[in-house]
């Protein structure tokens, strides 16, 4: 057995998880290899440290006294408590957004943009309630207006600062029954994104139809993946089933099976449309993208 093979198996050796023949071979190697013995000793020390560290981290950790009360409230708010669906997550997410807007705090950064667009669409709640409106105005200094099928208009999308990276696009056509469920700006090294997710509202099952649209600029989004080529409004586009974690649905995962990615460029913006819809519908959605209209609030 080589040092390299031994190194790969050391953790399992220490955890007593090697087969007897593997264990025997490893022991034989260790007898004659001081470097591996030192490595093994270091890993053994680390394992002990990890165990103690984990115990220490949760030694005093207990749920809040009102945990059951909160759960009861959440269960009471569900339409039919025992149904095997995911509908409860949406009101919860939206409620969090409202709570974050009022209260600030750590939840705000993560959730404030989730559901914000939804709220604006669902009934103008955000812009109708003065205290919320003031907070939203503070958060969102770049307003965009758009139309969805059915004549409803949306407003929102905040870049949260003095600068906006680019003007986002929104589909002018969506398959019947899909609605906008999430929007937000995210970043990664070398890229800035605006993201939207569309699905039935509320999302009922893990395999519901969905669209995840990621619009990104920056050096990290340069280039199209390999795949079957099509055209979107005369521009080269690529279909592939190779997805990365960035393409996975963000609200109420998991991403439904059979999802594909359609990638192309609109100017400098790389468009990535991930969906389990038929390809012709994905293309139709892609071809319907129109730039949002920047405004000065609602």
């Amino acid at each position, binding site marked *: 057995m080589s040092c390299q093979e031994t190194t790969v198996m050391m953790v399992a050796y220490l955890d007593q998880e090697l087969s007897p023949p593997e264990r025997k071979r490893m022991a034989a190697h260790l007898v004659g290899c001081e470097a591996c013995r030192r490595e093994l000793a270091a890993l053994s020390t680390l394992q002990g440290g990890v165990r103690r560290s984990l115990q220490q981290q949760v030694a005093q950790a207990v749920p809040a006294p009102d945990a059951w009360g909160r759960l009861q409230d959440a269960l009471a708010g569900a339409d039919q408590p025992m149904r095997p669906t995911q509908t409860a997550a949406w009101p919860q997410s939206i409620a969090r957004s409202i709570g974050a807007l009022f209260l600030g705090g750590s939840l705000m950064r993560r959730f404030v943009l989730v559901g914000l667009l939804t709220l604006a669409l669902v009934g103008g709640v955000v812009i109708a309630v003065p205290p919320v409106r003031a907070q939203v105005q503070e958060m969102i200094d770049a307003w965009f207006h758009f139309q969805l099928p059915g004549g409803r208009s949306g407003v929102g999308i*905040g870049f949260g600062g003095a600068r906006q990276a680019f003007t986002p696009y929104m589909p002018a056509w969506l398959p019947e029954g899909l609605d906008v469920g999430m929007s937000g700006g995210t970043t990664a090294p070398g890229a800035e994104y605006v993201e939207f997710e569309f699905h039935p509202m509320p999302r009922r099952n893990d395999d519901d139809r969905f669209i995840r649209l990621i619009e990104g600029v920056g050096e990290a989004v340069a280039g199209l993946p390999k795949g079957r080529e099509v055209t979107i409004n005369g521009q080269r586009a690529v279909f592939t089933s190779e997805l990365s974690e960035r393409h996975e649905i963000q609200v109420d995962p998991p991403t439904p099976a059979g999802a594909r990615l359609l990638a192309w460029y609109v100017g400098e913006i790389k468009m990535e449309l991930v969906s389990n819809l038929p390809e012709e519908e994905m293309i139709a959605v892609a071809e319907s993208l129109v730039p949002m209209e920047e405004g000065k609030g609602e």
Partner: protein
Amino acid sequence: MDVIERSQAGDERAFAELFEQYKNLVYKTAYLMLDEPQEAEDALQEVFLRVHRSLSSYQPAKGAFTTWLHRVTVNHCINRTRKRRLRLLPITQVHPGRMPSQPSPERRLDDEDAIARAMRGLSGKLRAVVVLRYYWDMSYGEIAETLGIPLGTVKSRLNAALRALRAELEPPASVRLSDRDRATTFDSPNVGGTSQCATGRHEDAGLRS
């Protein structure tokens, strides 16, 4: 009928007992996966909401309830860490790259606090196997069953996790995991490549991108 069967039959009082009996299991796992008490509280609520909705799908013949509950909890936490990776921030609040941290000289392989900090750099998948193995004392077989992954994957993930922690705690001269944001430039000929490439590289190193 035990508490699980009664809960499956729709007995709300039994579900309250179930919550009381298993809340610490869920909370502690979530705490170790997500770091923050508030995140663990949120996870506790969301996991039990999910349990309430899908308890009917649990089949005792297919495995212990705790295995099923651990699976629901860990999968939820992994998804939370993914969302956190793509956290929704106003764009102008975020810098293009994170500042690499400097390794502290006092870091040692048996320093519980340093280990806790180093664990925050592990991806959700690697962290899950560490928590299940070294906190809950599960065998590799039990971890494989809980996560629904092959035994070999458990071995390789634990090995990757321990190696990543070791590299963070005792960084060799040329490679430190805390240099992860620079990794795409120093070990890749494809400088300025796609974020997908960068993500894959980080996953290989066992770190969140």
